[in-house]
């Protein structure tokens, strides 16, 4: 009895702290978004941006904010959240902190599709997106089918995924090698993951898909939590594990492939965000909302750096997220957290 009484306020305090941190991350996202919109070749002061966002402003400035820079900023937020969520689903399903949709070859497959579209068909934005979508989904399907044997086993999925994606990776390298230098470099920019050239026509449909799937995922939080405890336990608690796993995989794959099709395989956001959320909030449960917030923060912050660090050269955002992820891991190590993964 007494133990319950002391545990309760502690849990409440922890919940409050988690909420506070979530609000803080959300605020940080908002600040970054405003900064991202305000800077560029035509500077608009952050305060002016806020005014325009809340309905003020007309003419050129309004066009710049709403039509040119807003899609990119919104894409960073939404897509970051989407990648983070699908990373969380995969890490829970494989019960491996290094799990991410990449392990079933999604990114590599999407890159293959995009490369075929770019180098063979000389594709523009639409063709690249379609190619990437087809490539990613096809690869995920092949890996899933090959790993299927009386159910999916997390480890088998990983091993088959590595096999298939290494073939595709070397195919990709070969395509890059055979293409002429300019084509190869623009393909490589796409392959690193970039928000350059994102416009409303791309953000609206993908954003809608992301929002719908995220809503379904929030609804699915319980089976996910059960699966995290292990297949057998989840089954004994009355969960149809294979069906739940399939549904969750489909949702996560849909999230990642929609995002990847548009902006290319952005590394590390899916991997790091769930870990960040878990570590900073100090809880091991299903941190769907905090994870999504951290993902949004990472991608928008990464894109801000990618735009400004070597301006006027625009780096692909994936290059920055990879470095940020690496620095974060080293920070983890030096904090002396031993059981951080792997």
């Amino acid at each position, binding site marked *: 009895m007494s133990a319950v009484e002391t545990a309760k306020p502690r849990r409440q305090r922890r919940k409050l702290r988690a909420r506070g941190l979530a609000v803080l991350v959300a605020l940080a996202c908002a600040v970054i978004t405003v900064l991202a919109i305000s800077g560029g070749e035509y500077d608009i002061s952050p305060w002016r941006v806020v005014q325009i966002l809340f309905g003020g402003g007309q003419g050129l400035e309004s066009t710049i904010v709403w039509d040119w820079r807003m899609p990119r900023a919104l894409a960073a937020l939404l897509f970051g959240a989407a990648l983070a969520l699908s990373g969380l689903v995969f890490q829970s399903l494989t*019960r*491996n902190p*290094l799990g991410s949709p990449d392990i079933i070859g999604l990114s590599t497959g999407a890159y293959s599709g995009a490369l075929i579209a770019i180098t063979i068909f000389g594709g523009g934005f639409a063709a690249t997106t379609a190619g990437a979508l087809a490539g990613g989904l096809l690869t995920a399907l092949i890996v899933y089918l*090959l*790993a299927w*044997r009386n159910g999916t*086993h*997390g*480890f*088998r999925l*990983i*091993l*088959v995924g*590595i*096999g*298939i994606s*290494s*073939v595709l*990776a*070397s*195919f990709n*390298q*070969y395509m*890059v*090698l055979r293409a002429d*230098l300019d084509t*190869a*470099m623009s393909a*490589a*920019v796409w392959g*690193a993951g970039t928000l350059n050239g994102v416009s409303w026509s791309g953000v609206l449909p993908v954003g809608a898909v992301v929002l719908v799937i995220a809503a379904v995922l929030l609804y699915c939080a319980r089976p996910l939590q059960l699966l995290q405890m292990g297949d057998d336990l989840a089954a004994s608690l009355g969960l149809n594990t294979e069906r739940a796993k399939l549904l969750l995989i489909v949702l996560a794959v849909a999230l990642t492939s929609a995002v990847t099709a548009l902006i290319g395989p952005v*590394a*590390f956001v899916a991997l790091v965000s769930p870990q960040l959320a878990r570590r900073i909030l100090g809880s091991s449960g299903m941190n769907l909302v905090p994870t999504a917030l951290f993902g949004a923060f990472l991608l928008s912050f990464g894109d801000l750096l990618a735009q400004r660090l*070597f301006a006027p*050269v625009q*780096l*692909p955002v*994936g*290059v*920055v997220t*990879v*470095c940020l*992820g*690496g*620095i*974060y*891991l*080293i920070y*983890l*190590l*030096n904090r*002396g957290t*031993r*059981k*951080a*993964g*792997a």
Partner: protein
Amino acid sequence: MPASRVNTSEITDRPQRAGSAGAHIARLAFFAALLAGLAVLSLAIGSRQMSVHSIMLALWDPQESIEKALVLESRLPRALLAILAGAALGVAGLLSQSMTRNPLAEPGILGVNAGASLAIVIAVGFLGIQEYNHYIFFAFAGALLTAALVYLIGRPQRGAMDPSRLVLSGVAMGAIFSGLGTALSLVRPEAFDQLRAWTVGDLQGRNSGIVVPLLVCTVIGILIAASSARSLDALALGEDSARGLGIDIRRTRVLVLVAITLLAAAATSAVGAIGFLGLMAPHAARRVAGASTGWIMAYTALIAPSILLLADVLGRVLLPSELPAGVVCAAIGAPLLVAIARGRKPVAL
């Protein structure tokens, strides 16, 4: 990893199908013969086909001839390169997997690939070195430096070394360096051009001068690896048991690290990033070798170069233009890995 450590008897499908040293030696002899056969094929096949007789003649006949020049200056170094790099990558992969007890570890685990490619980008893009046989040494130095940095960051805080810290620091440095490498290569097209050729992994057009340094590194690395095989076996039982068996855990891990670094850095800078070979060859070897690290190592050192040689030979004949060995290697290795994964029991360590 689910069930990171499975009872050793479960590692093979059929329990201890061949425990005796005699059976092992017989099978090793078979794999050695296979490797030798592939080496002869590699000498014989190319734009100018040669019979075994003329190869022998070229190798041992003192008389100068076109064949002799072709074999000695082009095909023999290439075959040696494949054998050495294959063995080095395979053994480095096996060591990475046993040390971290993670079956998905590969030779690039210490950030070696990323370090080598960053060094290439810097050498080509910013120091103006265009010749492959020159920047290869930068790649080697970059790989060594990265591994040292990874060790410094992931080094033991107190007491024994924790491999998971090393893995994490390897992933971290690998990520940072590959990000930097990509960013810099996108700014310098000429560096990008060289990097894309190196990344694929190929044996074509390598200077025969790199065979000797590669040979030295591979031999030293494999000797160190072989000397720590028993300690690795003990470590597979857990740190406490290993300590009980009188194993100096820290010394073992440092030695293994040195071996991985030497092997992976030398092979990667010589033939490019064919890390996948190092990932899958030990899995194939484990299928025939059972649970003893020493035997697995012996098989790996024969199987991995066989795959690379086969890949190189196939790459020469499959298409009118040569396919890089790295591409063929993945195409051969991946079905094998999928088959292993689909086997009755998932391979675990």
